[in-house]
C-alpha cells in the first residue's frame, strides 16, 4: 500500500513538473518566434537593393544576398558596417543593436543606395 502511495506521490510530482513545463511552454515558444522574426533580407538584384528602405526592430540581423552576375558591396555611409566584396550568391549579415537610420551603398557602384531604419 505504502508503495502505491509513494508511486502516486511520484506521479503527482511528475504531473506538477509537467504542468510547470506546460505553463512555461508558451514563453519558450514566444521567445523562439521573436528570435526567428528578428532577421530580415535585402536582395541585391539588377544593380539595386530591395527593399530600398528596410524597417526592422532593434536586434534584427539583416542579410544581403547578391543575385547579380557582378560583384557588389554593402557599405554603411557613416562607417557603421562594411562588407567584403560579394560575388554572385554571396551574403553579408549585420545585426542592428541600436535604433536609428543607417544609409548604405555599394562602394563599387555608388549609384546603388539603400537604408535600414531600426526602431
Amino acid at each position: 500500500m505504502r508503495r502505491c502511495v509513494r508511486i502516486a506521490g511520484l506521479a503527482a510530482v511528475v504531473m506538477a513538473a509537467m504542468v510547470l513545463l506546460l505553463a512555461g511552454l508558451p514563453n519558450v515558444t514566444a521567445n523562439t518566434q521573436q528570435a526567428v522574426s528578428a532577421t530580415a533580407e535585402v536582395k541585391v538584384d539588377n544593380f539595386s537593393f530591395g527593399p530600398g528602405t528596410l524597417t526592422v526592430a532593434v536586434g534584427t540581423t539583416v542579410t544581403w544576398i547578391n543575385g547579380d552576375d557582378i560583384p557588389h558591396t554593402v557599405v554603411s555611409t557613416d562607417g557603421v558596417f562594411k562588407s567584403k566584396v560579394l560575388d554572385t550568391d554571396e551574403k553579408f549579415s549585420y545585426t542592428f543593436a541600436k535604433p536609428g537610420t543607417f544609409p548604405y551603398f555599394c562602394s563599387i557602384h555608388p549609384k546603388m543606395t539603400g537604408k535600414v531604419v531600426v526602431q
Partner: protein
Amino acid sequence: MAGKIKDELLHDHNNDGVDRRGFLKCMAWAGTGAFCVMQGGVLKSYSMSQMSQLGGKAAAGELSFVQISDSHMGFNKPANPDVVGTLKAAVDKINGLAMPPEFMLHTGDISHLSKPEEFDTVDQILKSATPKDVFYVPGEHDVLNDDGKQFLERYGKGSKGAGWYSFDKKGVHFIGLVNVLNLKAGGLGTLGHEQLEWMEDDVKPLKHSTPIVVFAHIPLWTVYPEWGWGTEDSAQALAYLKKFGSVTVLNGHIHQTMQKVEGNVTFHTASSTAFPQPQPGKADSPGPLKVPTEQLRSLLGITDVNHVQGQHALAVVDSTLE
C-alpha cells in the same frame, strides 16, 4: 544596319559640342567598327567598309597603339564562360594588325574580383602580344577589398597617388587617370582633388599644339548617370585641357563603343574583351548582357589608334573579335 545612312559623316562643332545625329550614328556602328579621324578640330568618321578607299595617310600614322579594356578575368557567367578565349582572340587581332602597334593601353577591369591569379592570367596572355609595353589604369574590379594596394604593387611603378601618371611617345602626351577609388554614395566616378592638382601641373609646361591622350576606366564624359556611367569631377580635368588643339579621351567600363566630340575633345569608349553590356537605358540595369553565342565576338573588340604627326589627327578604329 539600314542601308540609307551615308558612310561618311562630318561632325558639327557647336559650343554644346553634341552632334546628336552623329553620336547616334557612331553608336550604330558599334560592333561593326568605326574609323574616326580628327583634323583641325573636325572629326570625320568612316565605316570600316570605306577603309580601303581611304588614302594611306590617314590609316598609317607615325604612332600607333592599341587600347584594350574590361578583360574581367575570372568572370565565368553565361554572358561569357570563356573570357580567357576572348582575350586571346583580342591578342590575335592585335598581332594581326597591318600596322603593328607600339604599345597597349589597358583601361581597367583587368580582373573580375581582384584575385592575384586573375591578374597573373591576363599578364600571361598579354605576353603573347606583339607590343610588349602595356600601360594600365585600374577599373573598380581591380581595387576590390584593398583600395587598390595590389594594383599599385603590380602596375603602379613610377605612378603618383593611387596610380595616375603621364608619359610621352613621339610628341603625344599620354595621361593615365584613376577614377574608381573613394566613390561616394549616390555618386559617379571620382578623380579627386589631389589627382586634379597633379594633372594641372602636369600639362602646364606643354605646348598648345601637343596632342593629348587621356585614358581612364570610367568615362570622363557623362554617358548615362543613372547607371553611374560618368565621372563627378571630369569637367575640372577637361578644363585643364582646353588650351590644347587635339585631345582624345579613351575610356572603358561601359563595354560598348561610343564616341562624342565636344570642342577640341574626342571622347571614345572601347569594347570589352569579356562581355557586352546593354545600351544605356535599354535594360533595367547595367551588367553582363547574354547574347546568342554566335553573336558574342561581334560585340567584343579592341581599339586601334593612329597618330599622324603634323596632321593634328588621331585616328580611332574599333574592330570586333570576329
